[in-house]
């Protein structure tokens, strides 16, 4: 397959690049000053994987602490800091960078552009995100205050008022938290603007909106959602900083301020954020499933419409995080119904992916394994979501391990699984080498088993009444065995991620040479060499259908004859 020629013959500059003195300082300099969307995409990816390991290490400590009753592995204070940092890290320093890692690398290649619309803004956004992350972690060193030397935010990742006020959170840990999120927020805003401008204004000739690959479509919708999602968080953080530094009273209940309004502001951001994080996973599924089922995606227009629909509905569901604060019945009913409504477009997506696989010639390579698991896990996560969206049920289980199980089913079962799928799928494009299939299967099965041990079991812990945020529990509650299973599952996932990390690093030098198009795929990125040259396309491609490479490979039966 590797010997396929490029779609436009003679279009590439095949002279070898100028030999550089490749000292490590040159290489480092090249990466620091780069504005190339591919390098920035890889840097976002490296950042995400690095913080995934950090956040994962934190949660493993938490799971060791909870494995036995009355355990003393972590002190209560450190436990609080670790689950706060775990949540903040995974959302802002793993999830968001992953959106832009894939977005940056793939979108320009998929739409036949030479770079993002604003390369320098792109670099700026990346460095803002990275330094925001470093600022957050600096709080371990610099966050000292009344607590002593090292300190870190310990107020959970949604940081409810008035716990965040100076009186209750002395020292600078909360300040680092708020400032870090403002800084990464600007990076995110810049990235989102860039993706939208790229997808709208940089498409190659013939790439109408209804011919855009679904991955690009979903990232476009995702970035639109980010514009109105990350900014309310920035606004709320500015208010928090004003409260803490200037003595204002936004969230100061002593002066008539409201703690509830922080909850509203936070979840207006926080709920759509979940969709923001899951959209790239949808996009990856929409690329991987057709290619590995050897069929065009089923119901392309419905997939686009469902994506836009999810984005719209997700803006009106935030208070389902707040059923227990005592809202009016009308508000409760509204948020129950609006949350249920999200199930409709999401269901359309699941059915369309299944219909794509139906009757296809499925090849279960590693990316497809992860995507298949994603389908089931995402469905289950949606079902527990519907359960939790029903206010009376929510009153029973709010703040229990059932909730943790539910949202980790999305965040790990859908997002992390498909992130792995995406990495296995596009690794050959980015590096020119295949990742090891054997290690990939080991990684998949270990992660799959560990995932289900951990998060399936957590549902039952929730039913048995185990609350979140407790650092330990007495032996007579009957939670001990299940907690041990959860913790062992967590460790298995940790081992799986190490297998993945080893696979990633060893495949860089030892992997099979991939060629341009190892999966026999159909979107434009597979028409470039692997890895693509800095300019991507020597001449601007022209497309006539949603699957330009199919048209090239099958001139007797091109897609554009059938598409409207």
């Amino acid at each position, binding site marked *: *397959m590797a*010997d*396929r*020629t*490029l*779609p*436009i*013959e003679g279009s590439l500059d095949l002279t070898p690049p100028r030999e550089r003195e490749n000292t490590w300082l040159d290489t480092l300099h090249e990466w620091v000053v780069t504005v190339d969307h591919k390098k920035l995409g890889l840097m976002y990816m490296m950042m995400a994987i690095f913080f995934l390991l950090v956040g994962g290490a934190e949660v493993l400590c938490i799971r060791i602490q909870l494995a036995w009753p009355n355990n003393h592995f972590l002190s209560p204070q450190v436990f609080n800091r670790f689950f706060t940092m775990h949540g903040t890290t995974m959302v802002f320093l793993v999830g968001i960078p992953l959106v832009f890692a894939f977005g940056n690398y793939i979108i320009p290649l998929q739409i036949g552009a030479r770079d993002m*619309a*604003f390369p320098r803004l792109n670099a700026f956004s990346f460095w803002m995100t990275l330094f925001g992350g470093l600022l957050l972690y600096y709080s371990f060193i610099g966050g000292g205050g009344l607590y002593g030397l090292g300190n870190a935010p310990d107020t959970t990742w949604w940081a409810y008022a008035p716990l965040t006020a100076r009186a209750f959170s002395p020292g600078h840990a909360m300040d680092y938290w708020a400032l870090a999120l403002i800084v990464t927020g600007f990076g995110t*805003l810049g990235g*989102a*603007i*860039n993706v*939208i*401008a*790229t997808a*709208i*204004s*940089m*498409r190659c*000739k*013939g790439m109408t909106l209804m011919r855009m690959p679904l991955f690009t479509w979903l990232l476009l919708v995702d970035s639109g959602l980010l*514009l*109105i*999602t*990350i*900014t*309310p968080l*920035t*606004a*709320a953080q*500015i*208010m928090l900083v*004003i409260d803490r530094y*200037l*003595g*204002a*009273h*936004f969230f100061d209940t002593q*002066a*008539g*301020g*409201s703690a509830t*309004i922080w909850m509203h*502001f936070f979840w*207006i951001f926080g709920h759509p954020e979940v969709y923001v994080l899951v959209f790239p996973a949808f996009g990856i599924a929409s690329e991987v499933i057709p290619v590995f089922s050897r069929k065009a995606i089923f119901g392309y227009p419905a997939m686009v419409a469902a994506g836009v629909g999810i984005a719209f509905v997700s803006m009106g569901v935030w208070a389902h995080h707040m059923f227990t604060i005592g809202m009016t019945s009308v508000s409760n009913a509204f948020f129950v119904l609006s949350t249920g409504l999200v199930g409709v477009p999401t269901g359309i997506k699941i059915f369309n992916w299944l219909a794509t696989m139906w009757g296809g010639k499925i090849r279960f390579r590693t990316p497809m394994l992860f995507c298949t698991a994603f389908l089931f896990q995402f469905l289950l996560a949606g079902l527990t979501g519907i359960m939790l969206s029903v206010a009376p049920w929510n009153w029973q289980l709010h703040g229990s391990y059932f909730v943790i199980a539910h949202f980790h089913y999305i965040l790990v079962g859908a997002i992390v699984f498909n992130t792995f799928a995406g990495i296995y799928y596009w690794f050959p494009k980015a590096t020119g080498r295949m990742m090891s299939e054997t290690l990939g299967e080991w990684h998949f099965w270990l992660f799959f088993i560990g995932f289900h041990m951990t998060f399936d079991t957590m549902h039952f812990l929730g039913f048995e009444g185990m609350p979140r945020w407790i650092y330990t529990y007495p032996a007579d509650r009957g939670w001990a065995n299940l907690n041990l299973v959860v913790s062992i599952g967590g460790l298995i996932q940790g081992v799986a991620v190490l297998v993945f990390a080893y696979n990633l690093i060893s495949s860089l030098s030892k992997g099979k040479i991939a060629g341009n198009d190892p999966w*026999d795929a159909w979107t434009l990125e597979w028409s470039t060499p692997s890895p693509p040259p800095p300019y991507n396309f020597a001449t601007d491609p*022209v497309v*006539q259908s949603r699957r330009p490479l199919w*048209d*090239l*490979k099958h*001139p007797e039966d*091109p897609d*554009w004859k059938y598409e409207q």
Partner: protein
Amino acid sequence: MSATTLVPNAVTLPEQPWNLPSRGRVAMYCLIIGESAIFTIFVVAYIYYIGRSLTGPTPKDVLDVPIFNTICLFSSSVTIWLAERAIDRNLVRTFGLWWAATIALGLVFITGTGIEWHRLIYQDGLTIRTNLFGTTFYSLVGLHATHVVVGLSMLLLVLIFTLTGHVRHEHSERIQVLALYWHFVDAVWVVVFTVVYILGR
């Protein structure tokens, strides 16, 4: 799979024009949408806290409606529009004049805000920590004033380029993108003015 040589598809559809929106404009509209969300949160907080301060002073006691400032700011939208039109017609000198007028009007506005704040702080004793009114008032009006200052800095930069002869007709597009931001800052003032000086009093 066979290694047949693939050539670009020879069957080409009739040549269609391929025009995409300008990326600068798209990006500015996106920025405006994002900024609107930030302002929405501050406006919601302001409206939510109207009349909830536990101590005085209240808006009724201390706020005067800044009619003159408001007229100046709204006029600056007109002058910047005239400037845009001038550069579009390649009248660089006229452009410079209207552009300078815009900056002058913006400066009048921001000075007016400064005078108002000075009076509120030193005569009426209202600071950001006095009560909820002070908190929300200085934050919302201050957020808008920050945007005015950022806008003025960018306008000033373009004025310097104009005076040194670097602005030409081909920059018309970029100037219009920048002007979009200024129009947005003005439009936000409509909301802030209504909420703070009319509803809030």
